[in-house]
């Protein structure tokens, strides 16, 4: 065959090759907003390729090529005229420094910051923070589309007021439907300030959400500061969204504590349960994979084939919601086979402490020893009692832990003890209580019955885990979002880990990596948000949404109190009895003014139909003004009365700082480009409101001399908001020696006891007490509420709704009963895990992220070949009835197992209606072998990745309210176990163990243990997985790529025999 030369005749390409060049989208999405500018800039080099040139012969293009001048084309595309850097820190909790490459003032691409390296010309990188290069690089695909997000059609371009709203007549029925009117900033600020100034009770001013991943000082952290000085309330997402894992607080007295990611690879055995770590913690994930390279084994426990399963050595498929039984089954093996570390249990846990049989309280020393007097005062819990090796009682205080234990106590006892008053009481050690229950009810065979996990595999896993040197156990949002998953499961995992001595040491522990508890790492923060002793009232969002709308939810039902036995009492300024007795510290104040910042509350809220119909749009709602500050016209902003546009991180005037729970860095961001629209940063908006409040409220009626003074750095000519940051740094030991200016050059490392950070290191190595009454990791709980609910010891309890068995009951009784809802035909679990291409709902409309997050149904073409779509163009309202539109490049979908889909006659790509007792929604089906089928146990599982916008769902033609989305079937559950004043814990900030030792100018100097409600620490969590639904076919829709994947060719391919005559 001859070598072809350049002068062959021109073939007729389109006819021969069958693909006519067509424009890929019916509406060119790049023409929208600034994305077009990016395209145009990058594409500017293409003109050259149209030029004709003489065809010259190339002898051998494998070895040389005559004219390479054209290569300049890609140099030009690559070229930039400036580089600036900032930090991407959405609520994924990670925080990653990125360089932005600029052309003509427009960011054209982002790259992760490395060490002091070209072309990372920005900050100095992580090395200067005193860590190894192994932290390079950080920053996922979301950071790389921050500039595209900034240019999106969904941006809010100027302040707006809903036309139907007026201060005196809020007319809430028009929310979400009325047109907006463009107003000036001055007018918007004035309306808001006027409403605040006219409040009868300042507690009715509510800010959502200040303690969050993004924007600690100059953004919505300023909102918290205003709520504090104004005397308002603050809501936080951490507890509401159920990231808060109360089992940690119950066991350790501590909000949550997670190790640095750099610690993960030191483990030699990992159990990962219900956490899709490989997609939730992208930037720091490599540490996890490195653990396997270093010999680590990994066992995953999931109901579905989670993407993380592909990395696991073993997958134990589990019935959804049955997770708390797993660690109890492991505990059974550990106890029965004597695999536990008795010394560790004696030193650091409540397991040797005696508990009275009559009232389930820990036995106190004064009850036994005449020379011990009864402790006085609320915070005095007395000393506890153990039995020494000869069976004699010995008093131990909460400080006598570790090596300071006065005796070697016996772990097991079940005896009668004579008390100082001459009476006799039956006592058992905490360990005996747990052991008896575990041995009786949680053998691997019994756990198999509960969970469907094969008993032999569970027992094998338990033995291997016990034999490992360093065992770590992860759970996450997937389980925290179950009513009992977020406390019972966690307590039992801690039980296993403490029996194995897997706490406080490198490569060990029990971690969650969910949520905003990272703020504790910035321990000088209270100096800013709670200035001069003013602190906003905590407010649990579920109360407002459940009880302050027009129609209220049944307070017993949403607590799982189906027999209506809980003693509910009036609370706060509610008119109905809605709180369990003994929860006085729980604020309930009507949110007359609700101002959300950096939060898409209505998209992400549970029981969405109730919230929209009753809290938002009901004529009798207690909410008179709903203000939304956002970058985008979200579902929440669409329902606002006042819409305030904020800049993207790339456009910010003022810098801000950020920290993260799985890395040791503190970092500062700053804008890299001029704002595109008439936006203001949260801090500046707050400052302007504060200034206006001074004008409207006479000095004698203000709670502070001047509201403006607290925000003066935002407003004064010579103001410098970094002064706020520096002052807070100076007030925290983690940041005391850090100069804000240094952060302009890159990250710094926080000052912590260890690097990598290992939680409870001081407890185990320096014999310091845990933050519980007993000073130990507590398994039996003596607080009245736990005893009353029969949850004082470790158990598995069935879901309040998401179960075919007896709801809210223990086994074996639960297994003998059944769930009425299940019997009525609601026979699917409903799972809403996190998507990797979004952070919650943010990036939900960013084109590339949308295409990929829609997976099979994401297309770069708005009108793809061979399929039908029921969704329309996305439309975002602007002032005066105008809209900004975007092509629908992706749509939401629900994953469902093929056998379950076949049962209802549904094929890949068809649309279904999912219905629960609280609402329904129509969505496209992705048939997926990953999902748990009904015949694997009892019910199938449906999975909708969370964070879709309503626009991503088609309208249901039969639906009257038009409310749609992934949250319509979920519920606002309140766990009464978490609504009690008497649980002892540490506050968010500071360590009571050393609060006398730290400098007096540290914000938490002198901090003591606390009890009762504390936002982000001890509050009911807004669980949403306890949800049964049913599913039916809605409409057929051809979707040909799905069929193409199921043919014989595919089967041969998968079997490795596709190539002719291969093996």
């Amino acid at each position, binding site marked *: 065959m001859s070598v072809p030369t*350049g002068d062959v005749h021109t073939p007729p390409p389109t006819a021969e090759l*069958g693909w006519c060049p067509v*424009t*890929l989208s019916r509406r060119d999405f790049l023409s929208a907003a600034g994305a077009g500018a990016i*395209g145009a800039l990058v*594409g500017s080099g293409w003109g050259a*390729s149209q*030029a004709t040139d003489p*065809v010259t012969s190339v002898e*051998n293009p*494998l070895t040389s090529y005559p004219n390479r001048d054209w290569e300049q084309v*890609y140099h030009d*595309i*690559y070229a930039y005229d400036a580089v600036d850097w900032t930090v991407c820190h959405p609520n994924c909790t990670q925080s990653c420094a990125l360089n932005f490459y600029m052309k003509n003032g427009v960011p054209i691409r982002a*790259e992760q910051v*490395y060490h002091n390296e070209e*072309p990372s010309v920005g900050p100095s990188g992580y090395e200067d923070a005193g860590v190894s290069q*192994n932290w390079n*690089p950080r*920053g*996922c695909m979301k950071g790389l*589309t921050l500039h595209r997000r900034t240019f999106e059609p969904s941006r809010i371009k100027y302040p707006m007021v809903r036309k139907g709203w007026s201060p005196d007549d809020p007319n809430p029925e028009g929310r979400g439907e009325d047109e907006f009117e463009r107003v000036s900033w001055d007018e918007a600020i004035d309306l808001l300030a006027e409403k605040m100034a006219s409040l009868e009770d300042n507690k009715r001013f509510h800010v959502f959400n200040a303690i969050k991943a993004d924007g600690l000082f100059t953004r919505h952290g300023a909102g918290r500061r205003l709520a504090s000085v104004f005397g308002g309330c603050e809501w936080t997402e951490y507890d509401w969204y159920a990231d808060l894992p109360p089992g940690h607080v119950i066991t350790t007295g501590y909000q949550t*504590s997670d190790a640095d990611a750099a610690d993960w690879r030191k483990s030699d055995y990992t159990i990962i349960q219900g956490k899709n770590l*490989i*997609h939730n913690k*992208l930037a720091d994930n490599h540490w996890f994979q490195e653990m396997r*390279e270093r010999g680590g084994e990994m066992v995953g426990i999931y109901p579905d*084939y989670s993407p993380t*399963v*592909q990395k*696991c*050595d073993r997958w134990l498929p589990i019935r959804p919601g049955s997770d708390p039984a797993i660690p109890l089954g492991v505990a059974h093996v550990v106890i029965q086979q004597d695999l536990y570390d008795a010394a560790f249990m004696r030193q650091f846990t409540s397991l040797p402490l005696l508990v009275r049989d009559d009232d389930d309280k820990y036995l106190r020393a004064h009850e036994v020893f005449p020379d011990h007097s009864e402790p006085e005062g609320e915070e005095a819990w007395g000393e506890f009692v153990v039995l020494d090796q000869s069976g004699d009682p010995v008093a131990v205080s909460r400080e006598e832990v570790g090596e300071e234990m006065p005796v070697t106590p016996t772990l097991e006892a079940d005896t009668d003890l004579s008390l100082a008053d001459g009476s006799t009481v039956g006592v058992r050690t905490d360990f005996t209580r747990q052991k008896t229950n575990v041995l009786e009810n949680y053998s691997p065979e019994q756990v198999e019955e509960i969970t469907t996990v*094969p008993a032999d595999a569970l027992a094998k896993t338990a033995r291997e885990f016990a034999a490992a040197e360093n065992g770590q156990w992860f759970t996450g949002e997937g389980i925290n979002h179950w009513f009992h998953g977020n406390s019972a499961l966690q307590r039992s995992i801690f039980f296993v880990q403490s029996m194995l001595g897997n706490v406080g040491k490198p490569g060990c522990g029990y971690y969650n990596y969910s949520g905003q508890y990272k703020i*504790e790492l910035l321990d000088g923060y209270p100096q800013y948000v709670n200035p001069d002793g003013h602190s906003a009232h905590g407010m649990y969002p579920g109360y407002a949404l459940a009880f302050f709308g027009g129609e209220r939810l049944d307070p017993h039902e949403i607590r799982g109190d189906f027999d209506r036995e809980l003693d509910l009492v009036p609370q706060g300024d509610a008119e109905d009895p809605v709180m369990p007795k003994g929860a006085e510290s729980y604020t309930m104040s009507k949110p007359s003014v609700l101002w959300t910042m950096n939060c898409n509350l209505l998209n992400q809220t549970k029981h969405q139909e109730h919230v929209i119909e009753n809290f938002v749009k009901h004529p009798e709602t207690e909410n008179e003004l709903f203000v939304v500050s956002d970058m985008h016209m979200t579902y929440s902003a669409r329902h606002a009365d006042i819409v305030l546009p904020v800049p993207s991180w790339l456009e910010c005037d003022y810098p801000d700082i950020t920290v993260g729970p799985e890395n040791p860095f503190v970092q500062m961001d700053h804008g890299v480009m001029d704002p595109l629209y008439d936006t203001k940063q949260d801090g500046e908006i707050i400052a302007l409101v504060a200034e206006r409040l001074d004008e409207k409220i006479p000095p004698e009626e203000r709670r502070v001399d001047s509201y403006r003074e607290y925000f003066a750095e935002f407003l004064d000519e010579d103001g410098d908001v970094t002064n706020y940051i520096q002052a807070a740094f100076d007030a*925290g*030991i983690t940041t005391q020696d850090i100069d804000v200016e240094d952060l302009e050059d890159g990250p710094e490392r926080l000052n*912590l*006891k*260890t690097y990598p950070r290992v939680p409870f290191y001081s407890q185990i190595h320096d014999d310091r007490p845990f933050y519980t009454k007993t000073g130990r990791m507590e398994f039996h709980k003596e607080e009245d509420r736990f005893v009353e609910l029969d949850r004082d010891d470790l158990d598995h309890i069935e879901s309040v709704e998401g179960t075919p068995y007896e709801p809210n009951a223990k086994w074996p009784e639960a297994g003998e009963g059944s769930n009425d809802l299940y019997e009525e035909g609601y026979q699917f679990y409903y799972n809403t895990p996190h998507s990797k*291409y979004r952070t919650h709902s943010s990036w939900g409309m960013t084109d590339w992220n949308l295409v*990929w997050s829609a*997976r*099979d149904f*994401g297309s770069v073409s708005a009108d*793809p070949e061979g399929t039908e779509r029921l969704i329309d163009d996305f439309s975002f309202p602007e002032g005066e009835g105008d809209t900004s539109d975007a092509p629908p490049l992706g749509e939401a979908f629900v994953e469902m197992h093929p056998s379950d889909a076949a049962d209802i006659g549904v094929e890949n790509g068809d649309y279904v209606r999912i219905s629960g007792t609280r609402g329904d929604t129509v969505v496209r089906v992705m048939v997926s*072998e*990953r999902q748990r*089928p009904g015949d694997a146990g009892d019910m199938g599982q449906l999975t909708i990745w969370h964070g879709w916008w309503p626009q991503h769902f088609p309208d249901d033609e039969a639906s009257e309210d038009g409310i749609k989305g992934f949250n319509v079937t979920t519920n606002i559950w309140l766990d009464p176990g978490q609504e009690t004043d008497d649980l002892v814990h*540490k506050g968010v900030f500071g*360590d009571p163990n050393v609060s006398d030792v730290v400098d007096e100018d540290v914000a*938490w100097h002198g901090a003591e243990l606390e009890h009762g409600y504390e936002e982000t620490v001890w509050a009911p969590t807004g669980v949403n997985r306890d949800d049964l639904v049913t599913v039916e076919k809605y409409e057929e829709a051809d979707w040909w790529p799905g069929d193409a994947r199921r043919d014989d060719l*595919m089967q041969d*391919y998968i*079997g*490795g*025999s*596709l*190539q002719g005559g*291969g*093996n």
Partner: protein
Amino acid sequence: MAKTYNPQLGREQPYPYEHREEERDYHWGMVINTNRCINCNTCSFACKSTWTSGEGEEYMWWMNVETEPYGGYPMGWDMKLLSELEEDQTIFEAADADEQVKGYIAQKEAWEYPALGDDQAHGEYPRGDVVESDLENDEYHDIWQFYLPRLCNHCKNPACLAGCPRQAIYKREEDGIVLLDQERCRGYRRCVKACPYHKPMYNPETGITEKPVGCYPRIEEGNVPRCVSSCIGKTRLHGNINRGPDAASPGGNAPGGRSPINYLVHSDEKVALPLYPQFGTQPQVFYMPPYHVPPEFLTQMFTPNTDQKRNDWPGSTYEESVRIVQERVRDPSHHVLGILQLFGATTRLVETYTVKENRVKGWDQNGEKVVDMPIYEDIEVREGEQWTNQP
């Protein structure tokens, strides 16, 4: 057609052009550890935001990650060709008489879903059972998926180059990067048809074809491609695949000898395999295979897939090669573990390296040290009673 020796196949094969007599001192190459890959597509976004965010390029993802076995961009790209190839037949040998290369044009709709099959697993849900992998006992996951990052392989026998009738595609002398001359191309799409990896892509707006550029503006400055530096999973190492054990020091205090990727690909401790070497293009991106996945599938994907094993890979059959490599990847030697620390440590292109005890070091092409880090790190404990991990 000329004959050329293809070491990946262990035999001669036809190719339209003569190879150079001597291999380049430097050739673009890459190793990807699929076991570290988390399918975040940060590489894809990095590539697209750098190179293909212009008009007519909306559908182009030069870099994409697909989930095996159901993923594919364009859809089914490898299946069609595999089904039409005989055993031991390269795409050059299978070509019809009037063409250089056997291939096909993926139609428009096959490109429209870049995330098709994303995160789909294959297998039966384990009812009443568990899923387990135990390499020593030849046990693999029976429901499985894995992530396959896909990019231009900058092949030593590039099919796109062979297929281009205008000779507008060439291999750069200095680094082996395969480029498509944007001024010379007339959009015949012969390269689009020829490339078995489907990485040349036609721009319907400009009427010419574009292909991945190996990030040459970065390579020329001694930096690694965007898909490598952006990889937060630290799955990748880029460098000089041709730098063997006898090569001299690149300068300074840098040691001579192999590049780190050459060690992973060409040493006796081979841990990385080419993607579809049976196509005959000598691709230069090498994959550390997923160790939980059944080797039958991987043998089809990462070996010449013939009954008779001809090349110098370990084992007596290709399936055995895969099994051996899987085990090496699951439980890497200290030396390989050391090299794994170089992945994602620096944006500089690591030309040579050392692994000594607990230290790994890397030097760039100028002989400057660009990596110096421990393999195992001890915990640091701050002295003083005020310090706590609990603030």
